[in-house]
């Protein structure tokens, strides 16, 4: 146990120490030290994680020290909960994190703030591990806000551009709205259970016997958590920050805004699944939110020209899938998709980054084309990624997405099914579009493209292998696989097992066939449409809606931001300036005026004063007399 404690502490502290180190050393020792150091640190953290992964059989709690004592019988501890759920995600975070660190050493070469970049990245890994491993809601919240901070810092990494800084601020503020929900949820849960420790809360739920009042507060908590999760995982209505977050360096987009941080919402809901099961309505909300987001984001992704924006909307869409799965009571499917998505989306982002790097920071797909010759490794890696996300068997994306589609189709909710399948088709189409526009046809840009350095291509290849084979982790039993992940997670989350019968087998085969057909159709359509691309996109008034992202940013701006600014101004000039200060200054000038009037009495003639004294004496006398 002591070893476990040490491992856990090391695993989290190494990136934290790294974060402070690189900030100090970055400027002094140059890139080489920083890149070697940062990668070594992360790999060390990954190894610790692996050690814990194999060292823990059941769930284990590691307690470090008391953080905040709330009252005599409740306190918040810095403590970790090591169970399959957290360890799996921890492995992904540190593993994919290490790969992306390696990649970033190549991508960020020559940047004047090299050290600062790795400092932030390490800080992010620290926060993410806190989020994943924490055993209390407050510790989780520490990581939750910490990743938000790192996301903010990294989005506005190139801060000389005002737009980047604004995008970072937007990300942080929108996340904060979610965090507000999370915070309220913590309060409500504390109200009900008197503790903020996750295992304690869950065991209390297992015991049951909640009063009506407690049920009410647990419902409030669910809504708060949904708000929090939708903020972090960029679901409708708080999705607006993620596309703008692409202003950050591409490794950041891959690590934070695709593979790890944005999946925190899914993780949170899986973690507290019993709570949501208690309030069935909230799961329904999650499912519909996910389905809607998936469809919405996919429809927008088709019309984006910025390669990273396409991937950003794709991420939102895939996250929608995960929410859909969680909402329909299939957390393992969601978790599985989370993992495979981490692989192939990181791959896609890094591939896109490689292209951008090769083209000297050109992100517009209209200015690309025909790159498969210049960048063969990138091309092939990306191809794997595209096929995986499009759901072509037997790549990882196919398996995980198929599980989700299976859940949806058997849930009996037609609307959700339609959304899910439509999204699958659209996903294939926009990914095909991206693929074709980038790697086929004629080169339409200005710069000569080169293949990226080894540090980057190595990572691409590794991720491509993972994306291709990731499906094996949870290959369905129906098809003769062994559902490793399902088994592993079964102690933590509840998911209905698919019964093994010939009927189910037929159904699943049919489904798999249909979904891969959809994927192929999408890709094929994209190939036909964009093979000889001449700069012409679909043109129709309706499509403007998609191009402009349903005008949601504008809507928020008009409905909320401007109004708040207006209110701020009114409060400042109106309430503070006019009402309060006006009243008080009025009091002041009133007094002055009165004094000016009364000043006339002060003639300076001593005798007149004597008259006043006399009158005063008289009044006193009169008063004394009347009192008598």
């Amino acid at each position, binding site marked *: 146990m002591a070893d476990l404690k040490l491992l856990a502490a090391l695993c989290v502290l190494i990136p934290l120490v790294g974060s402070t180190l690189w900030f100090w050393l970055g400027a002094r020792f140059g890139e080489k030290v920083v890149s070697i150091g940062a990668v070594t640190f992360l790999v060390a953290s990954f190894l610790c994680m692996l050690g814990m992964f194999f060292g823990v059989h059941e769930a284990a709690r590691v307690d470090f020290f008391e953080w905040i004592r709330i009252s005599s019988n409740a306190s918040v501890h810095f403590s970790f909960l090591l169970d399959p759920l957290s360890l799996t995600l921890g492995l992904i975070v540190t593993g994919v994190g290490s790969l992306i660190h390696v990649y970033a050493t190549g991508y960020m070469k020559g940047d004047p703030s090299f050290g600062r970049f790795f400092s932030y990245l390490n800080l992010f890994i620290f926060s993410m591990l806190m989020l994943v491993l924490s055993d209390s809601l407050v510790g989780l919240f520490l990581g939750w806000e910490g990743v938000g901070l790192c996301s903010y810092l990294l989005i506005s990494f190139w801060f000389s551009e005002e737009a980047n800084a604004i995008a970072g601020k937007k990300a942080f503020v929108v996340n904060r709205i979610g965090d507000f929900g999370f915070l309220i949820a913590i309060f409500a849960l504390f109200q009900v259970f008197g503790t903020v420790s996750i295992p304690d809360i869950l065991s209390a739920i297992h015991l049951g016997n909640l009063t009506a009042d407690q049920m009410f507060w647990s419902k409030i908590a669910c809504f708060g958590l949904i708000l929090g999760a939708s903020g972090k995982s960029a679901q409708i209505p708080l999705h607006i920050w993620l596309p703008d977050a692409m202003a950050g360096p591409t490794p950041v987009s891959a690590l934070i805004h695709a593979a790890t941080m944005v999946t925190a919402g899914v993780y949170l809901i899986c973690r507290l699944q019993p709570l949501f099961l208690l309030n069935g309505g909230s799961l329904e909300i999650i499912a519909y939110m996910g389905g809607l987001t998936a469809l919405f984001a996919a429809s927008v992704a088709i019309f984006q020209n910025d390669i990273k924006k396409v991937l950003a909307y794709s991420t939102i869409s895939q996250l929608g899938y995960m929410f859909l799965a969680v909402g329909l009571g299939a957390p393992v499917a969601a978790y599985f998709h989370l993992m495979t998505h981490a692989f192939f989306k990181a791959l896609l982002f890094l591939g896109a980054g490689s292209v951008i790097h090769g083209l000297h920071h050109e992100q517009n797909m209209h200015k690309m084309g025909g790159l498969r010759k210049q960048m063969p490794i990138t091309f092939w890696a990306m191809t794997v990624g595209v096929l995986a996300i499009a759901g072509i068997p037997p790549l990882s994306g196919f398996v995980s997405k198929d599980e989700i589609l299976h859940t949806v189709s058997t849930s009996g909710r037609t609307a959700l099914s339609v959304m899910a399948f439509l999204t699958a088709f659209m996903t294939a189409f926009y990914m095909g579009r991206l693929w074709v526009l980038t790697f086929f046809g004629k080169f339409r840009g200005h710069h000569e493209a080169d293949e990226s350095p080894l540090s980057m291509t190595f990572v691409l290849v590794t991720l491509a292998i993972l994306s291709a084979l990731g499906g094996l982790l949870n290959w369905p039993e129906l098809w003769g696989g062994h559902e490793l992940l399902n088994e592993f997670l079964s102690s933590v989350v509840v998911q209905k097992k698919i019964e093994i019968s010939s009927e189910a087998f037929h159904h699943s085969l049919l489904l798999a066939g249909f979904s891969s057909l959809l994927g192929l159709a999408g890709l094929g359509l994209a190939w036909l449409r964009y093979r000889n691309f001449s700069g012409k996109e679909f043109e129709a008034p309706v499509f403007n809606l998609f191009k402009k992202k349903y005008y949601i940013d504008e809507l928020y701006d008009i409905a909320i931001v401007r109004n708040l600014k207006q209110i701020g101004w009114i409060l400042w000039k109106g309430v503070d300036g006019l009402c309060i200060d006006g009243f008080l200054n009025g009091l002041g000038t009133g007094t002055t005026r009165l004094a000016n009037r009364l000043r006339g009495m002060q003639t300076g003639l001593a*005798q007149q004063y004597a*008259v006043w004294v*006399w009158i005063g004496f*008289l009044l006193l*006398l009169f008063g004394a*007399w009347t009192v008598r």
Partner: protein
Amino acid sequence: MENSQIVFFIFSALILVTAGLVAFRPRPVESAMWLILNFFLTAGLYVLLGSHFVAVIQVLVYAGAIMVLFVFVILLLNLDPRELGTDSSVSWGSLILFVAFLSFILLSLHVTTPELLEKMPPIKAGSTFGTVEALSKTLLTDYIFGFEMAGVILLLAIMGVGLLAYRKINNPRIVNGSERP
């Protein structure tokens, strides 16, 4: 009506008349002269009241010393009417009203407390009232603090006057008694 009563009324009437003259004769020197007369009459009243020593002091200090100071200053300044200024015209009506008001209060006092109107008891035979001896005994025993304070006040007044006189010489605005423009 007894003799002493008649004398008292005569004195009272004279005191009031002289007081009026003091207050309303236009030239200060006249006022001062009438005031001296007034003080003499008051001294007489004190004799009637049996305070002989006080009466003496009244004549010596008040009428003698203080009033001489006044007259001396009046002579020193030697003012013409323009420099004296015109007196204000506080309405006589309000003054009368005021007097009437005070009289009313005093009268009502009479009504409510008639014992005020009783004649004062005669001075007991063998009493030392009003003599220097009795006065000085009281002054130097019971009222020693007040006595000392009076001395201090006088000292302060002397210092104050000295200061005022001293400043006159040093004041740069005044050279040879005339103001510099």
